[in-house]
């Protein structure tokens, strides 16, 4: 009899566990807050500003999703994650989505069971060295000591690059960007390697950014984008189309300045009408309100505005659009149509 009780309990427990999974959209709505995983601090991508408010290029994606789902771009709980903790945090349900300079790779998609909803920054891995080191190419780094964030794709690329070029190096594994910066500036490593955008943003916070150069080699493809857990397509769609709304808004010229006017009444561009909910019922299909995209775009502006504000040439980070320009401008940023 003891055995039956035991087995019965197991079944009940199993059923309860099964019922608890999926339904992230409903969870977020019920909670009234979006849990969004970001970096521990990378200026331009995600960092708390002087008032303790998180801001940045990745943060803007979180805010857009929160605005689309909850109508409030401030209803976000930012969870700082390291390169190592981010996937466990997402897989365990501690966060609803991850927007943390995360590269879309085969194994993360297929083996780690995550769904990348798109790409918000096309990047590649670079090297930063002090000018005084007198190095002009990554191939001259034989025997150097390299600071590298653990649990990243960049760590694997680094091993491959040095092996392929038959040169040696000494890795100094670090946990966060802040640690990497400390070791690099103290000369405990000769070079710091990570995504080139991350290097540019790290360099911008140095006292003398001019003393450091990025080497010309870009040794990998790093398409960075937001991701969610496998198996909850409804939620994946919400995040995917919130990002696409930002991109489409730029393409169609919808900005935070004119969105109030444009969303007031249907205009003569049907796609803008569908996007902003003045025509059709795209919001309803997603399980959101009709003005979801308007809220997402109003949160921090369209894709181009977000880029200019956090990373663009007018900021200390000073990144050019490059690959991250709209497809119409020769870049790779391209949203499927809102139809």
């Amino acid at each position, binding site marked *: 009899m*003891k055995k039956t*009780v*035991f087995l019965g*309990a*197991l079944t009940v*427990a*199993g059923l*309860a*566990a*099964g019922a608890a*999974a*999926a339904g992230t959209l409903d969870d977020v709505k019920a909670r009234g807050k979006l849990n969004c995983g970001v970096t521990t601090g990378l200026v331009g991508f995600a960092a708390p500003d002087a008032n303790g408010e998180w801001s940045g290029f990745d943060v803007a994606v979180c805010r857009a999703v929160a605005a689309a789902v909850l109508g409030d771009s401030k209803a976000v709980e930012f969870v700082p994650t390291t*390169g*190592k903790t981010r*996937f*466990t945090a997402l*897989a365990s349900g501690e966060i609803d989505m991850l927007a943390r300079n995360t590269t879309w790779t085969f*194994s*993360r998609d297929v*083996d*780690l*069971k995550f769904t990348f909803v798109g790409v918000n920054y096309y990047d590649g891995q670079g090297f930063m060295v002090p000018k*005084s*080191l007198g190095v002009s190419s990554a191939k001259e*780094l*034989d*025997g*150097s*000591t390299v600071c590298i964030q*653990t*649990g990243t794709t960049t*760590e*694997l690329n*680094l*091993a*491959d690059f*040095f*092996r392929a070029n038959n040169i040696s*190096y*000494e*890795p*100094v*594994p*670090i*946990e966060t960007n802040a*640690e990497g910066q*400390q*070791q690099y500036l*103290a*000369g*405990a*490593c*000769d070079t710091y390697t990570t995504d080139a955008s991350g290097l540019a943003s790290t360099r911008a916070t140095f006292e003398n950014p001019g003393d450091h150069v990025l080497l010309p080699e870009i040794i990998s493809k790093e398409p960075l984008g937001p991701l969610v*857990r*496998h*198996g909850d397509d409804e939620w994946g769609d919400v995040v995917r189309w919130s990002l696409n709304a930002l991109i489409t808004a730029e393409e169609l010229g919808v900005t935070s300045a004119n969105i109030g006017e444009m969303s007031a009444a249907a205009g003569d561009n049907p796609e803008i009408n569908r996007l902003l909910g003045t025509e059709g019922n795209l919001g309803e299909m997603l399980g959101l309100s009709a003005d979801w995209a308007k809220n997402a775009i109003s949160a921090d502006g369209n894709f181009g505005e977000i880029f200019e504000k956090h990373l663009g040439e007018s900021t200390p980070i000073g990144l050019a659009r490059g690959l991250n320009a709209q497809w119409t401008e020769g870049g790779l940023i391209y949203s499927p149509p809102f139809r």
Partner: protein
Amino acid sequence: MTTLSDPPKEGFQLSQLIYDTRYRSMTIQIVALIGFLVLIGWLISNTAQNLADLGKEPSFRFLSEPAGYDINQRLLEYDSQDTHLRAALIGLLNTLLVAVMGCITATIIGVTVGVMRLSNNWLVSRLTAVYVEMFRNVPVLLWIVFIMAVLIETLPAPRDFRGETPTASMSLNETVAITNRGVYVPEPLFSRSLGDVHLFGNSGLRFDVSLDLIAILLVLGLGLFASNRIKKRADSIQESTGDRPTTWYLRLGVVVLPLVALLFALGFYLGYPELKGFNFRGGTHLRNSLIALWLALSLYTAAFIAEIVRAGIMAINKGQTEAAAALGLRSNRIMNLVILPQALRVIIPPLISNYLNLTKNSSLAIAVGYMDITGTLGGITLNQTGRELETLLLLMLCYLIISLSISAVMNWYNESVKLRER
């Protein structure tokens, strides 16, 4: 069932399980056990269910896939094409290395400080008290990070050794380089080396054993054995005649001379570190992650050991000291011959838990980027393969085995100390 000779017995009623004191404790235990098993079962089934929902069935196959990442400090040969299993092994050896180094240093510092704290010298006892309180009352993680920061920020970078007018220079007659990437010390090399034997072929567990090292250990062992024989003989002569022959030069000779001869035969020489390119090359590189972790763990644990030693010594009756003094023993002989041997019995059991703590605390290594097993298997491997459950189970198993082994060895030692009890 009932027989007449038995005292009258009422039929067994279920309520007896609770109200009858003969059964009550049994009932409670069985209920508690069932509850416990159900809880465990629920945890397991919940985990399995959730993993199945995520489409991740537990599997250990990832261990035989290439790791893809490099490890800086490796006691065995390893490159990024080796398997995750091999990476875990490299990490395990790093854990053991820092644990063994830490336990030895912590014991030496701890015993010294513990004895000094009992000193009659006001300054000495105060200073050691300050040391103990400082290290005991600040989390060890902070000490690890702090020592690392000091090493990185205050020591010169290799580039400071370069150029026309270097701002830093090598120490100890140009043999040791102290940099903020670690300390480079001379390494022993052999020009007529006997070579290595390769064990376990090409598997993940393969390793090389240096025949030079084996030869040295063998000669050293034989020397110590011979020296011990000489001592025994001197003892027996002393027993029978009352005179102890002077044997120290003989005993030293049988240990040192064969060793020197062997080293000479092997062509022993020291390889010195040299600045080449970006870094020092040659010599043995003690990375500052190792130094920071080792120092912090040793100093922290030593503070606890000092208290244990102090308590152990104070547990010995004062009469013992006085009696020994009355026999005319000098105070350090009283400590070594009378007090410490007795105190050891009190000291060893809590000492074991401190060794265990030190070993487990070494898993904080990642804070300074030391690649121990938590850093490789429980860090990068976990992250790159997404196998949280499997890696953590393996990791727990590893620590469990290490800890149980330490306990076993120390308990055995404790027994041997106890035997002398009369």
